[in-house]
């Protein structure tokens, strides 16, 4: 009832725009709906036209085949392990660097900060050839560190947390210092808790970025076991294998963790992205 009243009060222009927006919002969910429902269909039901809106009955065979015939568990583990480790290390490194850049004094601080910030806008894909060469020289191909360490070199986290630390008054730090607190204690007990909201948002954003870093993982993984969920599932897709059910289930499995993360942490996305972007 309240909704009807509100709709009646809307200007015509407003009403039409929102109808369009809502329609497209629902349409943009359809591919994902197709994916999830089809992963529970048999291959022949997937091919059937017109398609059934819901599977005739829940068919688990595709997922069984995915988990029995393919190292899908290992892929999931790899994705989680690489994303989580990269993110955790990156947050720690970014936070401590952001603290140093915001509050401490050292030679070369300005120039390093500027270079680090400048690197945010440059995609690593543009220097992926020499980067690949470095990994080969380190003999890191097909290892976890190859997927993790290069992704720790990012200025984004430092930039995002810098403004949190900058906003903390110097006097707070000074008085702690005078009470005999060490630099590490000030950082971990005083500064980090204040930057907590920023760290939470950074963590989620970073996790998703690494999870979806397809090209790098594709280049680093050689053996089937070192693939991540995204590269593994994409390789299934490209394999000459007529089993469409298996391919659909693979894609659905790759989509699921991110859908869950998004539902659980929606507000962090907004926060994280705006903190990393512009101040109006």
């Amino acid at each position, binding site marked *: 009832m309240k909704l009807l009243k509100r709709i009646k009060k809307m200007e015509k222009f407003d009403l039409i725009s929102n109808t369009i927006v809502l329609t497209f919002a629902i349409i943009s969910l359809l591919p994902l709906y197709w994916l999830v429902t089809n992963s529970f269909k048999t291959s022949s039901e997937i091919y059937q036209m017109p398609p059934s809106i819901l599977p005739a009955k829940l068919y688990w065979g595709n997922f069984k085949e995915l988990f029995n015939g393919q190292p899908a568990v290992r892929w999931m583990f790899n994705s989680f392990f690489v994303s989580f480790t990269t993110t955790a290390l990156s947050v720690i490194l970014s936070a401590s660097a952001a603290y140093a850049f915001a509050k401490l004094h050292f030679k070369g601080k300005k120039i390093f900060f500027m270079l680090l910030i400048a690197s945010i806008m440059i995609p690593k894909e543009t220097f992926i050839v020499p980067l690949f060469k470095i990994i080969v020289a380190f003999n890191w191909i097909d290892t976890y560190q190859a997927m993790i360490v290069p992704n720790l070199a990012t200025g984004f986290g430092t930039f995002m947390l810098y403004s949190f630390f900058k906003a903390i008054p110097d006097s707070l730090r000074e008085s702690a210092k*005078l009470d005999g607190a060490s630099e590490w204690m000030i950082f971990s007990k005083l500064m980090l808790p204040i930057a907590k909201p920023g760290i939470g948002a950074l963590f989620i954003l970073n996790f998703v970025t690494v999870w979806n870093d397809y090209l790098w993982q594709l280049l680093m993984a050689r053996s089937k076991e070192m693939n991540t969920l995204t590269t593994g599932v994409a390789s299934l897709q490209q394999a000459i294998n007529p089993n469409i059910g298996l391919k659909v289930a693979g894609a659905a499995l790759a989509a699921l963790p991110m859908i869950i993360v998004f539902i659980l942490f929606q507000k962090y996305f907004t926060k994280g992205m705006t903190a990393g972007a512009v101040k109006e």
Partner: protein
Amino acid sequence: MQKKNETQSNGLNTTNSIIAMDTQKTKKKKKFRGIENPYSGYLFAGPQIILFLVFIAYPVFEGFRMSLFEFSYSSEVFVGLENYKTLFADPVFIKSIFNTLIFVAAIVFFTIMFSLFVATAVYDKTSKYVSFIRGSYYLPVMVSMVVMSIIWNFLLNPANGLINYLMGNAGLENINLLGSTTWVMPVIIFVTFVGNVGQSIILYVASMIGIPEDYFEAAELDGATRWQRIRHILIPLVKPTTLYLVIINIIAVLKIFVVIQLLTGGGPNNASVTMMYYLYQNAFIYNNTGVAAAIGVMMFMIALLLAIPQFKTFGNKD
């Protein structure tokens, strides 16, 4: 040594320091620096700086160097600008520049227009509705371009895909959209747009919700229509967001790879090859390492140029 002693004594004489800081405000900063260990800055920022030097700064320079060499399995030969000359004489590379430009222009245009439209329509509605809209458009971004490309690959399959079935029902000719030189670009643009627009919507909605009420009150009193409010108040006020989005979207489209690899492989007949995809092919399929490095250098320069206005706003943020 002497300096170290000084720091220690300063640290111990806390009472003195407090008095000193209270009375001599001008000297405050200097005094404080005295009790700071001059190395702690390096300890805290050092790891990040080292990572930056090894995995960003060095590869950037190495990329420039590599672009001037020709590589074989065992040796490298200095060839000057030969790799660049080869590239500009290569019709596929020219095609890839052309395609990249079309992608960037089309996707950025549609993304900005559509996300502005969505954000201006929903920003003043109830938070539940806003969350739903935001979520629906952002989920495709979230599940990643990999999953979205796989889905579209199924849907666009000319033999048994849903899209061709629907086209057939609508009485349209059955064409292989991804196999047609005319249709492949619009289709890739559409697929990328759908998998990308959610981020811009989130940012626009956030910045519009952040605009204080009083901007609209005066307009309301003047009896301005909703369209006028959007046109003259909202859109001008979110201009910094627009600038930011234009730049990050250009850079995101510049490195577009997944869609091309999973949907077309650059085909048919190189109709959808992009600079990034051509770089990948040269580096990891054809083993033209020097040529690939040269493409990378050019893309790096483009990204750098585009990023300059953004650095300026970063600088103003302090």
